[in-house]
């Protein structure tokens, strides 16, 4: 019995081996969340992404809480979220888009095929604004309040279930 402590290193090893084996079976969280929630939107002014709509700037986020949608015409999940952004638009939400590394012709083509829920789309050719707000991919959707503060971040495409959540977050941001 006195030599029981000799088993301690082996027990520790078994514990860590077991922990490693358990963690291998767990799904890895691939999302990198923005650390900018609660911070003011960084200043930016982007050129229009195509002829049909004006560009986007920080100054556009006034009056009421709005959504800032980071997307791209080359992004497949952006097609999946298009109808749900449309639903948000029908609920009276103003969505300002930022198109990442996109061409005007591709943007116009995407909107013609999948609908246009945006009031403005800025063209971010070198992901400058995307990096400035702490977004790590497309699509991502931010709730920006009337004072230009970043209030909420949704990572990945907006699904049908996310529409009520975003509406609630917009309400909270009032």
């Amino acid at each position, binding site marked *: 019995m006195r030599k029981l402590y000799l088993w301690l290193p082996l027990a520790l090893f078994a514990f860590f081996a077991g922990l490693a084996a358990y963690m291998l079976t767990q799904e890895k969280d*691939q999302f*990198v*969340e*923005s*650390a*900018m929630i609660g911070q003011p939107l960084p200043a930016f002014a982007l050129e229009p992404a195509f002829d049909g709509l004006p560009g986007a700037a920080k100054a556009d986020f006034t009056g009421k809480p709005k959504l800032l949608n980071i997307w*791209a015409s*080359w*992004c*497949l999940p952006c097609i999946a979220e298009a109808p749900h952004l449309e639903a948000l638009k029908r609920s009276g939400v103003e969505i300002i888009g930022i198109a*990442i*590394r*996109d*061409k005007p012709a*591709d943007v116009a083509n995407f909107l013609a095929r999948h609908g246009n829920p945006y009031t403005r789309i800025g063209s971010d*050719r*070198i*992901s*400058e604004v*995307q*990096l*400035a*707000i*702490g977004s*790590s*991919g497309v699509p991502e959707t931010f709730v920006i309040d009337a004072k230009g503060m970043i209030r909420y971040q949704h990572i990945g495409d907006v699904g049908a279930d996310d529409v009520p959540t975003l509406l609630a977050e917009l309400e909270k941001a009032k």
Partner: protein
Amino acid sequence: MIRWMIAALLALIALPLAVPVLGQDSMPPAPYAYNQLDDPRLEAEAAALMQTLRCLKCQSQSIADSDAPMAGDMRHQVRARILAGESPEAIRGWLIARYGDYVSYEPAVSSTTWPLFATPVLVILIVVGVLVRRLGKRRDDDAEAKA
């Protein structure tokens, strides 16, 4: 017949490879994504910093190692900011303010990481303590044996 089946099989295997290609943009990279700065001293500063910043899309590579378009845009930010006179640590700070400690490979002491730094010190202290006790004891034994 066999030839057709092999062709169909190969096409099936190649199919998943086609999807990531569809999910890429066709824009030229940002000016400083693949171009070095003219001043070798500044480029060395930028390169050293890029080695220690994590690619957000690929996650196990530094932005210096990654060919992801977003890593290219991050390299452009690093080089453009170095060129504008920002210090490498200020740029690292700017990115950490946006993505958290996660974006940096340079470990910093914080409320969650302090055990990483404290544990080795603690282990060394314990080892020193054990050694001192054992060696001290042996010397006592020696002294007793001589007496």
